[in-house]
């Protein structure tokens, strides 16, 4: 009798260990760390969430999801429909068109250098992380109109997804979908434009570009004879995005008067002083991301410069920096304008063209993986 008790205990112990071993051993192996991940020093600090570190598998998975139309309810719209690589991940439309066929009220935002700049996403800053952002367009009825439960079922029938999700996130879930899309987007780093090459001391800018750069980097001050385009008051010098700290990366840049002003950031913060505030976008690759502004109202960079040079609409929350910035001393009159010359406007546009990063626009690491030739 006693021997059976001992045998019984030994067998249960072994069975217990076996169950623990099976439960704790990843079925698909461990994820691999990402290699050769370099970012420019001048971009400054960045953080990657501790619960979503970049791995080879999470990035590959995110890239696949980004280009997969199965993420939409009608299996026809992927993230890349509105975020096309050749247009710096925009779509060339004033308002993007998704599953419903109804143009959206807002312009598709460029996706570049997302680890820097305002840590809020969408034009009104309603998402506070890339993970939070990722699931919103997927479920929006006018964008991708997908039910997350159905999506998880669909992806679970695809062996490649099952394996990649298994390695990267221990299985398919809505959190894992969000994390993978965020990981891929964190790798979309644009850092080889002519401006970057200039910052690294590899090239010089031509005379017009250099004049544009100086104007970009200066708030005008007639008293000290400094002419400026005032761009840097909202677009940081190296990133050219909005500022990172608190809500410094949002502003009202004078597009509408009080009657027409949209809620913008105030919809998120509930504060009247944020009415008409929108996210300051990166100007990286700006020459290929037309049309411009949160509603895509301007078709060309010339239109944008003309706005700052005489087209400013006054409103209660308009930035004093915009009202005050004027290249003409003691300028009288009600028009708010930088009063730049035509030559200066052209120079700023020339400088903006130095922000185009051809390598980024065609980098195969960011391209559609479904169009890649299958490995032999």
């Amino acid at each position, binding site marked *: 009798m006693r021997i059976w008790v001992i045998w019984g205990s030994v067998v249960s112990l072994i069975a217990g260990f076996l169950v623990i071993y099976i439960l704790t051993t990843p079925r698909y192996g461990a994820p691999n760390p990402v290699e050769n991940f370099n970012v420019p020093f*001048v971009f400054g600090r960045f953080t990657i969430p501790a619960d979503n570190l970049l791995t080879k598998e999470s990035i590959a998975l995110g890239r696949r999801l980004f280009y997969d139309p199965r993420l939409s309810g009608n299996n026809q719209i992927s993230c890349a429909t509105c975020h096309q690589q050749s247009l710096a991940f925009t779509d060339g439309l004033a308002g993007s068109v998704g599953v419903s066929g109804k143009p959206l009220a807002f312009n598709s935002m460029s996706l570049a250098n997302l680890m820097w700049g305002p840590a809020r996403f969408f034009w009104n800053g309603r998402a506070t992380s890339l993970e939070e952002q990722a699931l919103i367009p997927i479920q929006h009825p006018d964008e991708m109109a997908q039910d997350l439960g159905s999506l998880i079922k669909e992806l679970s029938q695809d062996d490649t997804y099952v394996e990649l999700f298994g390695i990267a996130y221990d299985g398919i879930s809505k959190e894992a979908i969000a994390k993978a899309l965020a990981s891929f987007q964190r790798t979309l780093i644009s850092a080889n434009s002519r401006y970057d090459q200039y910052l690294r001391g590899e090239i010089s800018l031509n005379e017009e570009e250099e004049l544009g750069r100086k104007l970009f980097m200066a*708030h005008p*001050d007639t008293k000290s004879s400094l002419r400026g385009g005032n761009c840097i008051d909202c677009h*940081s010098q190296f990133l050219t995005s909005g*500022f990172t700290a*608190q809500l410094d990366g949002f502003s009202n840049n004078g597009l509408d008067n009080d009657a027409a002003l949209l809620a913008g950031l105030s919809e998120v913060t509930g504060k009247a002083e944020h009415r008409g505030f929108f996210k300051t976008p990166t100007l990286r690759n700006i020459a290929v991301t037309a049309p411009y502004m949160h509603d895509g109202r301007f078709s060309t960079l010339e239109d944008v410069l003309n706005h700052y040079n005489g087209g400013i609409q006054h409103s209660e929350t308009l930035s004093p920096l915009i009202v005050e910035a004027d290249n003409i001393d003691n300028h009288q009159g009600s028009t708010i304008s930088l009063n730049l010359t035509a030559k200066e406007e052209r120079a700023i546009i020339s400088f903006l063209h130095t922000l185009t990063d051809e390598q980024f626009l065609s980098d195969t690491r960011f391209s559609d993986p479904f169009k890649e030739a299958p490995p032999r």
Partner: protein
Amino acid sequence: MNITKIIFLIVEIFSVLTACMEQASTAQKITLRLLPYVGQQPLIFNEYRYSNPGGKGHFKIRDFQFYLSNIRLSAEGHVYRVPDSYHLVRFDNENGFYEIDLTIKEPYPFSQITFGVGVDEKANATILNVGDLDPNSRMAWNWEVGYKFILFEGFLSLSEDTIPLVYHIGFDENYTELSLPLHLADTPHVSIFKVDILSLFNGQGALDLAEIPSVKFDRQDARQIAAGFAHLISTCDASCT
């Protein structure tokens, strides 16, 4: 291993452990709390509630932030330097005040604090991210000019007009060091200071904001505002709680 070596080893481990414990027990936590005022009135953003110091009308403050740098605490015969001490002081947060928390692994009874308003010449010439210095932030002019030490933006309302106010004050010569007595409450160690924004417009006599509504790169104007840096921060007395 003979018995002597073992005894030595035990004694060593014991002394290291004791030293660690002593270190932990002598660490001081000190909080510097800065409360914002405009003269005698507490700062409320976005409301025309403050009189133009040297002229007509009332002004409102939309944005205000400044760099406080290089904090040193002094005790009798000893000075502690806070490492990477570049703090962007701002009040547009839920508390309405700004705090700097220091953990100092030194037992000295500190009685004086010294710090700079602005950014010292060496740091002002770099693009390193040290402390709160960030060349991609709103406080950076550009790498050729350096940092704004103080950023003040708002509007002045006159009966017939509204004038934008922009005071971006920087330049190496305006970096100003202040020394103040450090009054620490028993527990927790909190020292409270008053930041008087109005001092910026009283450095060289009361300024009419309508006369000089904007100061950026004109060195003489910048000096006039920076003359008030010496009085920007003071120990909080009974009038400030």
